[in-house]
């Protein structure tokens, strides 16, 4: 068995409409090693959240995995029973969602919600679980954990709620943490604290992190590797420090150019930002060729005819583009 915590092989997720399958995610390959932080970037509808849900075995109809395998610590998620999947979730895989208000149960104290993890996965009794919950709150730096443990979610601010979510997710030292836009609903001033907290705790335990975000800047800043998705395809993957400085796929280049970055106006003036013309296609409209071709500034005759294969970049990384064939 390899050292990979997560191994996604040729994953295809299909949307079933009137008995026909339309691939929403197609041919995605991605591996994450122990302690690695990998970013998955893309616009809404590109399939990044679907990929994450399928890893946790949480896809619901009309979406389903129609091809490929997802291995978590060597275990095939598709072959697990619902029961073993449930015990895997929360124990070996954990998730943090964007909106801490809707992800927490408003009718349970945060202590009970954290303690639940220890009761379910570690078999602790109520009193021991409460103690463990206080320790977990302490670990995510909630001030006055012993008092706060009896609070309800509505008594906490957005940043504190996200800390509680992190405490729940990391309670049982999972092997893989999936963080789906964990700071998008928070202020920028809180973002740094929350991200640092997630990374620190995961580093301590050697937890692998799949960080999903639309913010290429944030992801490039904190991850080891970054994968970019467009319309269901993984179109480029590079080391984080390279993806921003030398993006290769025209879409990644477009994303980097479209970002108003601090300090850019001082050096480059108020020149128009690079626009990516057009909009993202809908799942039912995915054509045969490269899905970015209609918006691509460097489109060639054969781009619309066939889907490019994934090839290796000479400096490391992968790309799916005819320009790099």
């Amino acid at each position, binding site marked *: 068995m390899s050292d990979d915590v997560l191994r996604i092989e040729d994953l295809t997720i299909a949307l079933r409409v009137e008995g026909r399958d339309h691939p929403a995610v197609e041919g995605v390959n991605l591996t994450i090693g122990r302690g690695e932080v990998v970013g998955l970037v893309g*616009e*809404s509808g590109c399939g990044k959240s679907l990929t994450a849900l399928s890893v946790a075995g949480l896809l619901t109809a009309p979406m389903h995995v129609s091809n490929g395998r997802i291995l978590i610590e060597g275990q095939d998620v598709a072959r697990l029973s619902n029961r073993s999947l449930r015990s895997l979730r929360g124990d070996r895989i954990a998730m943090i969602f964007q909106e801490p208000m809707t992800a927490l149960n408003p009718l349970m104290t945060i202590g009970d919600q954290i303690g639940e993890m220890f009761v379910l996965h570690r078999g602790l009794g109520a009193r021991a679980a409460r103690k463990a919950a206080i320790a977990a709150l302490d670990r995510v730096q909630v001030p006055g954990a012993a008092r706060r443990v009896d609070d309800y979610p509505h008594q906490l*601010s957005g*940043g*504190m709620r996200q800390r509680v979510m992190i405490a729940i997710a990391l309670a049982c030292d999972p092997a893989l943490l999936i963080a789906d836009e964990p700071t998008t609903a928070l*202020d*920028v*001033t*809180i*973002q*740094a*604290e929350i991200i*640092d907290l997630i990374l620190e705790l995961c580093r301590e335990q050697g937890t692998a992190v799949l960080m999903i975000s*639309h*913010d*290429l*800047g*944030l992801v*490039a*800043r*904190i991850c080891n590797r970054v994968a970019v998705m467009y319309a269901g395809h993984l179109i480029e993957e590079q080391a*984080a*420090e390279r993806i*921003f*400085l030398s993006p290769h796929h025209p879409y990644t280049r*477009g*994303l980097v*150019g*479209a*970002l*108003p*970055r*601090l*300090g*850019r*106006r*001082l050096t480059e003036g*108020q020149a*128009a*930002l*690079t*626009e*990516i*013309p057009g*909009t*993202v296609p809908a799942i039912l409209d995915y054509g045969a060729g490269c899905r970015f071709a209609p918006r691509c500034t460097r489109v060639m005759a054969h781009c619309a005819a066939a889907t490019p294969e994934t090839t290796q970049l000479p400096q490391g990384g992968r790309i799916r583009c005819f320009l790099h064939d």
Partner: protein
Amino acid sequence: MTEAEPVLRLQDLKVHYPVRLGHGFGKSMLRAVDGVSLDIGRGECLGLVGESGCGKSSLAQAVMGLVPVSSGRIALNGREDWGADRLARARMVQMVFQDPFSSLNPRQSIGQSLGGPLKLHGVTNRSEREDRVATMLRKVGLNPDAAGRHPHEFSGGQRQRIAIARALIVEPQLVVCDEPVSALDVSIRAQIINLLLELKDELGVALLMISHDLGVVEHMSDRIAVMYLGRIVEEGDWRKIFTAPAHPYTRTLIASIPDPARPDAGWERLRGEAPSALAPPAGCAFHPRCAQAFGACRAGGVPEFTGLADDHRARCHLLTEGASR
């Protein structure tokens, strides 16, 4: 009216909301906007930044006349008292909202949404209205035949173009943009930012640009105002704000943006979260989170503005008493 008359002048504007604290606890005042004075000149873009809850949206609504003003003055083109003449006021100032999915009437065609305001503002000739709608649609980069279609037929970016067209069709001198790009995908944001800047140059319309995204604000603004708990804490030319920020809050805001081009540069954390506007801290409202706070910040009352340059001022005790320490 002279040429130098600002399009918008706020003088000591206060917007306070009475808040019931629960049975038996009486009422309290939420000071959403607490003494803001600002000018926006003709054709100028003023960026207003701050965390959620700092009062920036209340300020925008007060400018639009959507919430009652507790005290202070709002002068549009030098005129304060609009009385019952709401139409004339609406011709002066229009608004673009964050969410283009909820700010357009789904049952009206685009032609009706854009033509309605024209009719209300006295363009009685139908063919003239249709001409102006078509011209406006072309200006925002849409095909004039969009007039016959309904909002659900358009993508988020296209809807935001329609919302901008609706705001501009009565030829206002000021457009209040409340987070106009934060609901849009990254690749669409650049399109809308470029469009707003083009229209500002072409039509000479002034913008009040509210955003939490400092990159967007830096790119677009001529001047920037930073708001914290109901007050402006720093204001000035965009270059000054970004190259020589004087207030510790401004500095932390800028430092908390991840810079992908310099992944090794540390990012700054802000201590704690913004306090409630219901119970703002005594002295400088920022002192509990400020790393440089000293005696005067806690005891010295609300700091007054210190002029730093021609067009740059900040409210901070460090700039007055702190300098002589």
